[in-house]
């Protein structure tokens, strides 16, 4: 289908609006100048600066670890919640549960962060890697649940019934039929959780402790002292990482749908 001129213009304007700032950021990350707004020629200087900045590297490693662990935990919990809500018997308070699962999506992060901080203080938990991870898990599992729930909702229930009819107990039916079919949604949920955790500043700053600074917290505190071009380089690396993850995920889901015969767990 050929785009009309009007659609083409709106499409281009929309894309420019979304991506121009990012493109500028990427270009300036290769700036040789010490001043963020003055172009001083191409250079990889700020990248090498970043790789020598131990504090920044430690923060990045921390962020990746938190993101990976919390995304995995959130995917597990969120998927279970979605399955319980769409497939379980019509238990009492199901609508309430459903609503409660969605509430954190619209809850201001300050409230989530503060309430978690109060909880951790109350139970006398030492704040650090685990408290941030738990906080991120509670936030992101709702997103996973929503993504997986919508996939489960659109999936034909009779597929699971057919599996049971053909000799699977409910658990095996889930593993052999439901899981392979919702796997793209589960993977998408994991990636969403991963990126949400990676860029979260508010909740992390409430729940972190000394010695476990995440990358956004580190960047934010640096920026308060003035923007260094090194930040641009870090951001470019993060954008690159996220792009890679998304491309890999879409390739993987394409591949799995093409060669389902061998990919099917039996």
């Amino acid at each position: 289908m050929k785009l009309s001129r009007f659609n083409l213009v709106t499409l281009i304007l929309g894309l420019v609006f979304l991506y121009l700032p990012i493109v500028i950021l990427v270009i300036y990350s290769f700036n040789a100048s010490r001043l963020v707004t003055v172009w001083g020629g191409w250079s990889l200087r700020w990248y090498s600066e970043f790789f020598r900045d131990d504090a920044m590297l430690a923060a990045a490693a921390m962020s990746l670890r938190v993101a990976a662990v919390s995304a995995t935990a959130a995917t597990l919990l969120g998927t279970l919640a979605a399955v319980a809500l769409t497939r379980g018997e019509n238990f009492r308070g199901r609508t309430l549960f459903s609503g409660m699962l969605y509430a954190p999506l619209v809850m201001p992060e300050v409230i989530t962060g503060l309430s978690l901080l109060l909880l951790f203080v109350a139970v006398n938990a030492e704040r650090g890697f685990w408290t941030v991870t738990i906080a991120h898990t509670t936030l992101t599992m709702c997103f996973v649940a929503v993504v997986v729930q919508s996939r489960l909702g659109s999936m034909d229930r009779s597929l699971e019934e057919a599996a049971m009819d053909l000799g699977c107990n409910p658990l095996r039916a889930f593993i052999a039929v439901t899981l392979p079919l919702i796997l793209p949604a589960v993977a998408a949920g994991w990636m969403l959780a991963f990126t949400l955790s990676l860029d979260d500043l508010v909740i992390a700053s409430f729940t972190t402790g000394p010695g476990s600074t995440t990358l956004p917290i580190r960047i934010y505190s640096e920026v308060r002292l003035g923007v260094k071009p090194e930040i641009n380089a870090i951001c470019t690396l993060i954008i690159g990482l996220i792009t890679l993850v998304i491309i890999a995920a879409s390739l993987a889901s394409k591949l799995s749908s093409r060669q389902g015969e061998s990919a099917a767990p039996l």
Partner: protein
Amino acid sequence: MTDDVTQIPIDAGSIDAPLLQIDAVVKRFGGFTAVDGPSLEIRRGEFFALLGPSGCGKTTLLRMLAGFETPDAGRILLNGRDIAGVPPHQRPVNMMFQNYALFPHLSVRDNIAFGLKRASLPRAEIASRVAEMVALVKLEGMERRKPDQLSGGQRQRVALARALARRPQLLLLDEPLAALDKKLRENTQSELMRLQRQLGMTFIIVTHDQEEAMMMADRIGVMESGRLEQVATPRQLYEAPKSRWVAEFVGGVNIIEGDVESRDGGRMIIATHDAGQVTAAAPAQPLTKDRVCIAIRPEKVRLSRRAPAPDADHRAAINRLEGIVTGVSYLGGQTDYQVRLDGGAVLRASVANTARLDVDAYHVTQRVVAWFASDDCVVLEP
């Protein structure tokens, strides 16, 4: 998990015992009673159809047989054993779903093998059974395809092969042909009948299409509002419906209401409200009321230009009702006429077009005599 897919050997003594007994089964959803206590026995090797309009509870009844719904009351016995507490995966029953429910991520072969792998049969046995099923439903060369690479008819056959692969004692088919076009449906109907005879399996099919039920089934159970209205062979169902509802649901019918005027042995004379006096064969069961209705199938109403001469040899009395033709629908094999009788009633008459030229055709506004034998009238309670 030990589930036994290999057929339970049928001991010779039980061959006449019904395979399946449904005993006053009730299923309620909230305040709505979907299945309201039907009882039914199904013999081994029978092709049984559950026929009814949508929402009559036939699919719910089928789902209870498969184990997806638990009855609130009543019993379901398979081989004399109550299977109420047996979960779907342990029943020697398989189901073919209305939308086929093929696993989209598995190939044709893996779909068919799915139930066999669950039964932990040896590899070679699985391979040979899959090959046998593929040949049975004529899908050779399609084994590696995915469901979305198949046509509707092919998908239907994969679903059938998958359900048959475990050699169930009872195969349940939920509207198996609803998604196929007319030509394909007719072919598939005879194919299903052939398979059922060949495998000697018991089939229960759910359908809302009465022609489909009549063509395929040995017996038909007509359901309405969760109850079984009548269980009979297709012929009995059509020629001797038990109620006005069944008469109207199965095939076309003319209904004339009236009051019983007199009874004389095997006949009764009925004063109808809008078609004059009609002589009808008395029903087998005595009527409780004098108010009745007469059901006459359209093809049993014959038309002629003048009243036919009284036939002394005819056992049955002939009813002759005069009227004018108000509508003609030519349908190829037959022509449907609408005749408004002088009494005001409108009768439908189907006349087989036995000659190519329209020498026998009637036209609108033509005066005709509509006549039918008393034996062709079924007297029912209104």
